[in-house]
């Protein structure tokens, strides 16, 4: 951007809420423009001078953040209508004024902070781990083809940021659908040579309530995932795997 076309300041309209049961309201802020700013640095500027555009002193808006390089998953929010990480949301690339809202699919804690604990509970439900015998030295792990490792690695980048659940029309307060992120973890752990030994357990976990049947195939998840995880591919693979599993359950072939 050339010097002249740079704005002196930028406006942010933030949806605020003082607590889980409080009514939401909006506040507008104006912060000095700096080159290469992201939404986080704009929020930080507000924190250093918590005054609205109208000149009213207010409490600094609350949000979650941590790594600021899009690997921790903390700073998810809805920016100009789209759920994403605030750290990689560069001011120069956003339409102004910038609208910040919490991810409404989750219970609101305060302002832009939401409660994503249901995602971590889902990871328990689907047994998203390798059941190792113990942490003592048992020698090398199983060999794995690099080609397979490469696609499994893509799945293993999931930050549990919640953006895919926010975008999914089937994840809401009226449904118990666990959402795309934990489903994709089932595919990851079932791909690992040791994890595959318990794959039936994980498939059963997503064949029940809140599981894969809740997916309506809207494909929103894969478009918003900041890590580019092929979530819909995972769900399609798991659909086939669960069908196979129900046959095996019926004929008892897992016990043969």
């Amino acid at each position: 951007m050339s010097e002249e076309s740079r704005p002196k300041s930028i406006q942010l309209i933030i949806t605020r809420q003082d607590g889980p049961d409080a009514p939401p309201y909006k506040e507008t802020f104006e912060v000095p423009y700096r080159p290469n700013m992201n939404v986080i640095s704009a929020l930080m500027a507000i924190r250093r001078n918590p005054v609205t555009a109208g000149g009213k002193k207010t409490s600094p808006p609350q949000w979650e953040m941590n790594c600021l390089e899009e690997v921790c998953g903390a700073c998810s929010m809805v920016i100009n209508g789209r759920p994403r990480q605030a750290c990689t949301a560069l001011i120069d690339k956003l339409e102004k004024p910038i609208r910040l809202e919490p991810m409404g699919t989750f219970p609101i804690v305060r302002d832009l902070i939401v409660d994503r604990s249901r995602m971590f509970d889902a990871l328990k439900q689907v047994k998203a781990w390798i059941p190792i015998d113990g942490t003592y030295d048992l020698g090398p792990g199983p060999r794995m083809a690099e080609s397979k490792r490469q696609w499994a690695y893509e799945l293993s980048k999931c930050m549990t940021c919640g953006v895919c659940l926010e975008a999914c029309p089937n994840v809401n307060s009226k449904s118990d659908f666990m959402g795309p992120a934990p489903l994709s973890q089932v595919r990851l752990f079932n791909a690992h040579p040791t994890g595959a030994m318990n794959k039936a357990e994980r498939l059963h976990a997503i064949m029940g309530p809140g599981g894969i049947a809740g997916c309506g195939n809207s494909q929103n998840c894969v478009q918003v995932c900041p890590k580019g995880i092929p979530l819909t591919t995972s769900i399609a693979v798991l659909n086939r795997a669960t069908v196979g599993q129900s046959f095996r359950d019926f004929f008892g072939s897992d016990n043969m």
Partner: protein
Amino acid sequence: MGKGKIIIVGGGLAGLMSAIKAAEAGVEVDLFSVVPVKRSHSVCAQGGINGAVNTKGEGDSPWEHLDDTIYGGDFLANQPPVKAMCEAAPGIIHLLDRMGVMFNRTPEGLLDFRQFGGTKYHRTAYAGATTGQQLLYALDEQVRRQEVNGLVHKHEYEEFLSAVIDDDKVCHGIVVQDLKSMEIQVYRADAVIVASGGLGMIYGKSTNSMINTGSAAGELYQQGAYFANGEFIQIHPTAIPGEDKLRLMSESARGEGGRLWTYKNGKPWYFLEEMYPAYGNLVPRDVATRAIFDICVNQHLGINGENMVYLDLSHKDPHELDVKLGGIIDIYEKFVGEDPHKVPMKVFPAVHYSMGGLWVDFDQMTNIKGLFACGECDYQYHGANRLGANSLLSAIYGGMVAGPNAVRYLKGLDKSSEEESSALFDDAREREKERYRRITEMDGDENAYVLHKELGEWMTKYVTVVRENKTLLATDQHIQELMERYKHININDTSKWSNSGASFTRQLWNMMELARVITLGAYNRNESRGAHYKPEFPERNDEDWLKTTKAKYNPDTNGPDFEYEPVDISLIKPRKRDYTHDK
């Protein structure tokens, strides 16, 4: 006594590993973290984890790993624990592999290893350039499994405020605050393990995550725990400057063939390759950082005269870059908007890691009985400079030592924390409630975040790459002025629910206390060693300074008193550290 209970503060690699070890021994763990543990700062580690698995026919061994680590740390680390760590390293990598970490593989399906700074061996196992994230997730998953087993109880969004320590200097629990309800509670335990991570936030902007305030360690220091080698702060040579933070560009970029250069007399000058022919771009971080700093600041040869040099990967095969360095290439593209496959990246040094930390014995116990520390918040494994890819190792290894030793300690107690008088715990809780009440009533005209910015600017300017006694003293003076101004903070937010400003204000005080430990430790140490460089005293001085700094809080002066203890050099005799030729 009963089965006993352990409290762990921090859910990064060190905290999670110690939790797994304690749970495996059948001991119940209460695990406290200010964030969901999956978002801990370990997630930011990029390049890999070291272990002399020696799969490339190079003749690598744990002894070579030990020698590289001790030499790289300029002989300041106690050698026996480092030896034990290097010997455990291959087993740790295999363990992580068994947990399902998607490490890069060779064509035969074995683990692949790459080269890192300060070594001639391919010793670093890696998962793309997001190794820390992958390792953290593996341990997070194992802890979740122990949660389902009922052995680990996670307390996320709960912040450590202080330890409960009796008159005999024995730790019996901690006081915490729920970061949503802001309620303050006390928890009893027979042993406490602190794995609270680094302190980069003291420098305002660094490669660290926002939670790396060092606040827990700073509080424990004020409660009587020694803080060791605080003056040794690693400045990573290659980061991208930003408004909100400085983003790391992993050393693995150079491990995979990346070259540092700038223009000199109109031609590209590969300065590290010229200055250090034996190691080239893979000199340790302190050496590379001083070179870049000198070229930019003293010789004014940075790109366009600015404080930046090129980190160049554009000559490498693009597909290979994606497979081996995808994570950092994404970060550069997303935040800078240029493609490192095609153009060289622009980088400058940034505060990255604290070699110093809470003093611990070889069992990871602090000078307060029953209080253990591991991970970046301890001082144990890196001496005066940490080698790349040794931090993931030391975090996990420290947890592997602290967990079982905490179990052993509590089994040897003749009285459980449940039997301690409740007055001890009630007093500790009431003291924290009172401190918090005072914070919420601060109604002056200073802003905590503005004070923090100023602290960071001073620390970055005077207590990083080049240190001068005059400006170190001036910095200490300025920190004390900030401590005065702190009393006039306006809290701006009186909410009794999810009030991060109040928490930050409390952390800021602890940051300033540790800033003094760092600054005065640097002032006292009149020599140059590893990351600590003083032009007034340009040489290492083993006669006077081959010793560990121990800072002890003095409540009367509200500052550190310093003691020194000898370094255990029983395995490798100190020799001159010189990367212009092979070691």
